[in-house]
């Protein structure tokens, strides 16, 4: 399990730029950033090197930010890599709330998942021979 930073952001001009600048000023390095958007607001999800400091920096800059435990799995960068992983979870009736993927190195990708029952999911993922990112 790793800590993801989630930020509640209104759909207003310049807000995302201000967010990334606040993180830059706190010397936070991001691995991944994704936005779940609705018509009124977005949820910005960030994987970074210092999640706790990132939340403190964002709070100080007037953002509403929290940390959330998510699962990060290393999957091979080839057709069917993610399908193999998700089928294992599906077989156990585990729901995925959301997920996204980012490439870390050439041969493999890292998938981030928020799952309904993380303890069971982690065990299933490890039993299936996948590597969890730390």
């Amino acid at each position, binding site marked *: 399990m790793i800590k993801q930073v*989630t930020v509640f952001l209104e759909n207003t001009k310049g807000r995302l730029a201000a967010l990334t600048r606040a993180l830059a000023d706190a010397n936070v390095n991001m691995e991944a950033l994704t936005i*779940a958007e609705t018509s009124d*607001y977005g*949820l910005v999800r960030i994987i970074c090197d210092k999640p706790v400091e990132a939340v403190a920096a964002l709070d100080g800059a*007037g953002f509403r930010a929290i940390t959330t435990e998510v699962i990060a799995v290393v999957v091979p960068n080839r057709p069917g890599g993610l399908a193999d992983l998700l089928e294992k979870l599906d077989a156990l009736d585990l729901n995925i709330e959301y997920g996204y993927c980012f490439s870390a190195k050439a041969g493999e990708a890292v998938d981030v998942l928020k799952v309904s029952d993380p303890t069971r999911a982690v065990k299933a993922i490890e039993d299936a021979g996948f590597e969890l990112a730390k």
Partner: protein
Amino acid sequence: MKKPQDILTAPHEELEAIQLEGIKKTVIKCYENVPFYHKLYDEAGFDPYAIESLDDLAKAPFTTKQDLRDNYPFKMFAVPQEDVREIHMSSGTTGIATVGGYTEHDLDIWGDCFARGVWYADGGPKDVMHVCYGYGLFTGGLGAHYGGVKAGCTTIPMSAGNTERQIRVLREMGSTILCCTPSYAMYLADTAIAMGLDPKKDFHLRVGIHGAEAFSDNFRAELEKKLGYKVLDVYGLTETMGPGVAIECMEQNGLHLAEDHFYAEIIDPKTGEVLPEGEWGELVLTTIDREATPVVRYRTRDITRIIPGECACGRTHRRIDRLHGRTDDMLIIRGVNVFPSQIEDVMKTFPQVSSWYQIELTRRNHLDVVTLKVEPNPDFDFDEVRAIEQLQRDISDRLKSALSVGLRVRIVEPKSIPRSEGKAVRVIDSRGDDQ
């Protein structure tokens, strides 16, 4: 020795005698000195010399805010300019400002009326009063100030703004009484807490006299919890004087009218009929001894009632209930009457959101659309869109059952709703912009 507080426990018959005497004089003075009243009474066939009882006053026509505007700036004055010591003006956000004038005597009774809030709290020269209502044309600042001085408090004229300096003074000068709008008191408390202070320990407040805007019982409870003091509601309006027309005592069960200076009636706002004691309606005020700008049967647009029976505190002046909104800030949404305070009460049952809110009214395809903006609290887990949508739906459902009208609820970013240092802007009505 006679004290100014003695009148607060005088037998009610004595107050009624003062009222009748004062009303007779006021009505005649208005008729003889203010052309507006002369014309009004002649046209209505009302005889200003024929008042024999308090009930006779109901025969007099009303005075409205529009009448005061029409006579801007000085045509409502009943004394020559050389007797006027001070001028105040209403904020005029809904049109031309209305002007109040004060003779030396008027300023004296104003101080006396506001000082009652201090006396209700057993306060006096041992108290330090911190006034951060705005000083200026707004009656809040100087009204509270005159009250503080009259009651013998060490009075600090902070005026509004510069919140960090307010907090420093509250800490360092040991203020025991805080006078400002309730929303600004909350803002002070929240800012102090954000600065790492505990206002309950770091301030020395024991009483807050808060008015100029309506606040709910929940809002009061939250203020009292954060600041560790007792909140007294104060009522008033520039058109009759300013804050101090009525103030709560420590029983916090209605606001004692200054019945030796104001005569109150409750009317049905539609028919203008005087309602029996205890019924809710519009408050109508007549000044009893005001010299510069007396008003007779002024329609306040504020909805309240006279609370029947005596107050446990032993004071004889009758109480009005806490305002149930105003007839003119009552929202009519798709034909349904809604008071902002009702919305606030529902919102406060959700710990996930803070007490700041704003109501936006727009019109789409000729239909009213109401959006309630609320801010999430720090401990609200919003990681999933579903959680936010669920909360918005839950608030909306509860509002629907409380108000019988559907509202759209929007969670917005913290601190994105403007904090006021004067009156809170709770409602933005842009329905007139619809084409």
